[in-house]
């Protein structure tokens, strides 16, 4: 399958990519890892007149710790995050990176591309929305920083102007006593999840000081399940409070029936995933090493 013909531009720097986008107008799109965009082009769901390739720019792929936060260059591949000891410091990040699609896709796909695409079935937005995440953007008028919760507006829609791009993703390191988990439930590795959930907890002894719970693939954007979080916050995490959080998450999910399952099935799945993720997050908050949290049908 061939995409429609397009003009190819190889940007030498992020500034140059912004300038090219500005010259070419809305018919130009950025090519990052391409693992979502190229399939869309081949199916001709997307038909941009111009593609601006970011893959030849140096220094856009990095992972570093600065001022209490981890910083990821926009072109950092999922596999680089999967294998990063630094990223393991925030377990949600490692879970997410290690579970996206398969080895081949993780070798190409990028964290910045995933956020900028804002696919409702994407993994990164759902995982990162439970953390204090800031998206660094660059446009013709310079740089700006946007909190992730304000960055994605709707399915496939972000605050980025057509001549603006993501340069970096900044994730604040959670306080001591924190633990998290991200679980995607998939029918097979290369497919999009049926549903996914991210849980981030901060414990003070037996009491849950803070909780963030997000649901993916069951709405037009990742959903923060505020009532599920409230069911945990300030309480000890017993079977009763965890069950209450799972029920609140079920109610917060807004799934569409499709070939992956009915709406009721997906709500049931969300409740089960939230329960499981809370248990893993809690064990990690207590300092346990818990591996491999993705599930396959």
């Amino acid at each position: 399958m061939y995409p429609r013909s397009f003009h190819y531009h190889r940007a030498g720097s992020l500034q140059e990519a912004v300038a090219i986008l500005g010259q070419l107008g809305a018919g130009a799109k950025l090519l990052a890892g391409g693992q979502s965009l190229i399939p869309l082009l081949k199916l001709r769901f997307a038909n941009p007149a111009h593609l601006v390739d970011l893959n030849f720019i140096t220094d856009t792929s990095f992972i570093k710790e600065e001022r209490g936060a981890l910083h990821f260059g926009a072109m950092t591949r999922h596999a680089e995050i999967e294998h990063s000891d630094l990223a393991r410091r925030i377990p949600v990040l490692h879970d997410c990176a290690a579970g996206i699609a398969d080895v081949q896709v993780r070798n190409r796909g990028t964290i910045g591309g995933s956020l900028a695409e804002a696919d409702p079935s994407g993994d990164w937005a759902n995982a990162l929305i439970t953390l204090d995440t800031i998206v660094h953007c660059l446009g013709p008028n310079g740089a700006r920083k946007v909190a992730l919760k304000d960055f994605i507006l709707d399915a496939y829609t972000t605050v980025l102007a057509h001549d603006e791009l993501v340069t970096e993703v900044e994730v604040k390191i959670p306080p001591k006593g924190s633990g998290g988990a991200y679980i995607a439930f998939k029918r097979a590795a290369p497919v999009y999840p049926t549903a996914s959930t991210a849980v981030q907890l901060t414990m003070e002894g037996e009491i849950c000081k803070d909780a963030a719970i997000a649901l993916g693939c069951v709405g037009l954007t990742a959903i923060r399940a505020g009532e599920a979080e409230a069911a945990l916050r300030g309480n000890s995490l017993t079977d009763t409070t965890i069950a209450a959080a799972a029920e609140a998450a079920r109610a917060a999910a807004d799934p569409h029936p499709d070939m992956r399952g009915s709406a009721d099935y997906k709500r049931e799945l969300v409740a089960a995933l939230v329960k499981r993720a809370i248990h893993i997050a809690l064990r990690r908050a207590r300092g346990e090493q818990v591996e491999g949290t993705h599930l396959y049908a």
Partner: protein
Amino acid sequence: MPESSTVQKIAVRVKVNGKSYSREVEARMLLVEFLRETCDLTGTHVGCDTTYCGACTVLLNNLAVKSCTMFAVQADGSEITTVEGLEKDGQLHPIQKAFGDAYGLQCGYCTPGLMLSTFQLLAENPEPAEKEIRKAIAGNTCRCTGYMNIFKAVQLAGRNMKGA
């Protein structure tokens, strides 16, 4: 569609299996088509053509990628390994030999891609457990074997490469 005279052609220089290739191609040409149609390397297969099955897997700078999900122009300046590059001096690579010895293939359509995913795995982890093999080849679909003999082939290859 632009007139044929206005179609943009872009120079691509790559090293495939150690040999240099220089071609002028349309930007929309996929890497798999580039390998098969302009380099005559037809060992890399087109399976689903939708980033699912992994039959088109090649190594790009030693990392497994789906060559149906990359444009050839993106590989400019890179080193690529296809299944044709595994054999050396008429001798099968230990991975190829193990897939035969352990009956890790039947129709063979998925095999080139599986062997290259195996190549990346064994480079990082010469003695993988079955769980690790499952994760490493999760992007390669085989509709014949049921995978059990593939797991055996990967482990056999690992042992043989270690002994070599």
